[in-house]
Every structure is written in structure tokens, then in C-alpha cells.
């Protein structure tokens, strides 16, 4: 099988370094959004793993995905500090607002809802991460506002 030039370019910094598979998987997702079946067979060749071993690694980690995901990933922290700040209620509010259950993606591929355990923003819970940005003292309104203008809304 001939590796696509694009993938070859993505993988090239990692094939010769020790333990390069994890950074390679991150790089594929950063560039392509998810890890496809074709990617798996190409990864197996590049890293001298069996395809089963590659899938083994991918499926162990929450961050890696085998299917396309929403353009915006909303991760709601459900760990203890946020529990003390009613994160369960927030999850249920957000879930009904977007009409999505956990790990579901909206049909327009705009939003995926996920849970996460600790964003290190425990002092200002409940915390939510939208893509790479953390929102403290999160409310459904703040989340909607953030999605609208990609800016943390300062006012309730």
C-alpha cells in the first residue's frame, strides 16, 4: 500500500522518534479531524505495528476517535469540585438545550457534547471547555455566547 503524501508528511516527524505513535495520532487528528481506517493501515506500516495494535492504542484513550466529530467540542467537567458547583444540573441543561446526549454530535456536525474529569479550573467551577478554551463559572448562557462570538462573555 502506498501512503498518501499528505499523511506521510504528517507522520514524518514521529516515525523515527521513540514512542512516536501517540504524537502521531494527535497530529493526524489535528490535521484530519479523526483517524480513518486507511490511516490505521498506514500507521501500522509506518510504526511496524499490527493494525490491531494501532486500534488497541486508539480505543484506550478518550481523545482519539475513529469517526468525524463536531466542529466545536463542548466538554463539561463532571469531577468532584465541579460536582460541588452543580455540574450535573448544568450538564442536563446544556444537554436539553442542544438536544444532545453525552458523546453525541449534532446532525450538522457543529457540536459534540462530552464529559471530562477535571480541567484544573476547580477554583471557578463548574468548568466547561469549548475546543481549547476553558469557561469558568459556566452557565448555558455563557456557553451559547461563547459559541456565538468565540469570546468569553463577561456578563451574565
Amino acid at each position: 500500500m502506498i501512503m498518501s503524501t499528505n499523511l506521510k508528511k504528517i507522520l514524518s516527524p514521529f516515525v523515527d522518534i521513540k514512542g512516536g505513535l501517540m504524537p502521531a495520532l494527535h497530529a493526524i487528528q489535528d490535521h484530519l479531524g479523526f483517524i480513518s481506517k486507511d490511516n490505521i493501515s498506514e500507521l501500522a506500516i509506518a510504526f511496524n505495528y499490527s493494525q490491531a495494535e494501532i486500534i488497541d492504542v486508539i480505543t484506550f484513550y478518550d481523545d482519539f476517535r475513529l469517526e468525524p466529530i463536531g466542529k466545536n467540542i463542548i466538554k463539561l467537567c463532571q469531577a468532584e469540585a465541579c460536582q460541588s458547583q452543580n455540574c450535573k444540573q448544568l450538564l442536563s441543561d446544556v444537554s436539553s438545550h442542544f438536544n444532545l446526549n453525552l458523546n453525541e454530535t449534532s446532525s450538522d456536525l457543529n457540536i459534540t457534547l462530552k464529559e471530562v474529569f477535571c480541567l484544573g479550573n476547580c477554583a471557578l467551577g463548574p468548568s466547561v471547555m469549548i475546543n481549547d478554551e476553558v469557561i469558568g463559572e459556566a452557565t448555558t448562557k455563557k456557553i451559547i455566547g461563547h459559541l456565538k462570538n468565540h469570546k468569553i462573555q463577561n456578563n451574565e
Partner: protein
Amino acid sequence: MNKAIKIFIPNETSANSVGAQYIYEVISKLINKNNVEIIRNSTWGAFWLEPYIEIEKEGIRRGVSYRNIDLSDLTTIEDFLIDFNEREPFDIQSIDFIKKQKRLVFSRIGHHDPLDIQCYKNTKGYKPLLNSLKIGPQETINAIKKSGLTGRGGAAFPTGIKMQTVFDQDSSIKYLACNADEGDGGTFSDRLVMESDPFSLIEGMTIAAYAVGASKGYIYLRSEYPLAKTFLLKAIEIAVENNFLGKNIQNSGFDFNIDLRIGAGSYVCGEETAMMESIEGRRGLVRSKPPLPAISGLFKKPTLINNVVTLATIPMLLDSDEDEFSKIGSNKSVGTMPFQLSGNIKHSGLIETRFDISLEELVRDFGSGTKSGNPIHAIQIGGPLGIYLSSSMLNTSLTIEALQELKGSIGHGGIIVFDNTVDMADQAKFAMEFCVKESCGKCTPCRIGSVRGVEIIDRLQKNKTSVNDAKLLNDLCETMESTSLCAMGGMTPNPIRSIIEFFPNELIQK
């Protein structure tokens, strides 16, 4: 050239999460004068004040909390300066929350731009490394042994002894792995080091690597910390440019490089052997010990593994002028501990202090009680594997030894406060649910026991008086404790046992 007016706007996850980044974007658009400059400093760790904006003028620095304040009406920088002055600016270093702390490891946070290496050097930075390079590896290890420093990641193993073990291995290749997979709910001290004083971690790693003879270091950072990643990458680059990393560091003949590796959302990868599996490019399955990582670790080579705060503490122990650190505390609880106060608490944040502070002092004097105004009901100490204490136990001292006596652990120093709306049976169930989600799956008691645990607690929530289920839960806890390879399965029972013991009739009724 120094500008006449400096505006400090923190660039740190928590501050940004409540608007610091937004304020930065607003104010930077207003600046048209060349006598005003913005400095993105780090947080002071008093998170209830964030975004805390400061202005320095004529050598005097004062700040204001801009929480929930709309700045969209401002049209000029003068508007902002007037608005700022009307809000009664104060010196954050004069408030009790900061003044009453003993900030040694976190002495730099808040003051400067954390990526300004000159500021780092002006505040004793890199003097310890030069000192270490002068006295040599064994003397460096001796200094760390003498300090009494124990690992701040949870296990509290003496750091100097671990280093000696790695040093003593006869191997031409050795590694240093920094565990930055700070996954415990309620903890953020590692993140603060990486975002707010990254050079202290890099310097600590360099000293540790030199001492044990490692020429390659890894930082295993959790993916939930993207801003820490940005700071670390830049700090590593700056350290290389200044010959504090790379080849022949400061003409010592010592070579050392750091590679940043990002995790992928697995809690168990914070366990050191699972972390090594992950760095090597596999599932994060726990390894059995022995061999100890110090003897055969990463890629089967001797490896020194420490968490972020431990490594960031090392430089001050090599500063020949002071040994303030080791004068504090006793036994394993020597030095300061960065407690992280969070949850339902008015004044949340980082509190670096002596270990033997009481819970009372921490939650009342520093924390000022619950955010909701309701009475405190429970306090969880040390992350998801930590015990819950009841409101009648506030006189508990937070030393490593005192927590061990209560069959708990100070862990990573996370303190989470719950008010009286908490359902302790739910918290017990969460301990098992978390284990179901995060178990690596290697040991049956952890992988399957946790599933059975959720079921038993489910039944107990319907019938607290079931003698059978109470006994079954106790047996299950015992099995998990004694037959799991790592702390994930072995310590998941801790919070549950503490709820049974310290919260009578809330999970099990006798």
C-alpha cells in the same frame, strides 16, 4: 525602555476562564500611547478575584477585580484608567489570603511575565543550576536528601533516595520523566507551575537530570491543559536559546533536552508505570513492580520520575544561601505544601503553607466559608482516591502522617469543599463510577469490582439498612485494596470507607 504605565493582565487558564483574555483584547485595542504597556503576568492564585488587573505607576502597583464587569463602553485608554481608579485599587500582597501564605515554590507567580527569562534570573533563577553544576551530581543529591523533600504527587517518597537509586545504576542511558498528568479532581498546582513559572520546572528538571546522569527528559502533559502546553513549548525554546537546555549547558559539558509529550484523556496515565507505557506509544496499562522505574523504567532504562511541583521545588534546595524550606515541618511533611482550595468555597485558590495547618484554618481563615452560604458538610482531600472528612473534623492537621492515620492521603494537595446539599451516597457511588471509567483494565478487582461496586451502592441508595449489601461492599473494598496492582483499584475504596465511617447513616444505616 520602561513605560510609564504598566497594565498587568494575567494570562492563565482560570483567569482567562472568567474574562482575563477578553479584557486583554479590549484594552490592547485602546492603547495608542507609547507610555502605556500591557504585561501578561501570571495569576496570583487568588482565583475568586480573577480577572485581577493591576496597574503600576511611579513604582506603585495596585489592582482591581474585574469579575463580571462589562468594558465594552470604554472608548479610550483614559476611560479605562479612570474606571480603574474609581474601583479602589489595592495591593494584593497586603491581603491576608496572600500575606498569610508561605510562598517558596510559588514565590514568583503573579509578579511577572512567566516567559521573561531575565525576570526569572533576577529572582534567583538559574543560580541553583550553576551551583549544582559546580558541586557535582553526588553533592546535589546529598543536598536534596538533606532537605527532606518528599514527592508531591501523592506517594510522598523521599526524593533524594529515589535520585540516589537512579544515580547508582550503571547505565549509559538514563531518562527523566516529569509526570504532568495532573488528573485528580480539585488540583491545579502543577498547571500553575507550568503556566506561571515554567522555568522553575525546566531548571528543576535540568538539575535532577544532571544529578542522576540523564541526558533526555520527557514531560508527560495531560491534554486537558492546552495553555500549559503553549507555555512549556515557549519556555523550552527560550531555555535552549539561552543555553540552559541543549548541548554543553553553561559550558559544563552536560547535555540535556526535554521532549513534551501530550496525553490523551486517560486518568490512569498519571500512574507512573501507565505513564511510561503511554510515552512508549502503547495503551496506558499499569506495569507490575518490581522492577522499579529507577532501575528499569522508560524504554527499559533507569528512569527518574517525579511530578511537576516536586521538580520545581528542587532549585531552591540548591540555593546555597538559604535553606528556609527544610526548616519548616517534620518527618515526611517537611517544607511547604501547595494546597488547592476549591469547590463550594468563597475564596478559592492556591495556598502554599506549612503542612500542619488545620483544615479549619484552611477553609475558614483562607477560604472564608462556603460560596453558597450553607454550612460545610464534607471536605474531600487528595483527589478522587482521597477521603471525605465531615464538618466535625475540621481540627484535622493536614500533614502526610495525620492523613495516613485517617486511612487517607494528602495526595496532590487538593481540598474540595461541599455544602449540606451534597448527597454522600452519590459521592460514594461516583468513586466507583470513576473507577469504572478510568480503570486501565489490567486487574480484575478494579475492572469488574468497580462495576459491582456501583451496583451495590445503587441498591444501598434504595435500602440503607441492607446488612447483606453493607457486608458485600466491605468485602469488595477489601478485595480491591489487597489485589490491585496500583492505587487506582487499591485506593478507590478510600473515599467509600471514609463515607461509611465519618458520615454514619448517609450511605449505610446500622
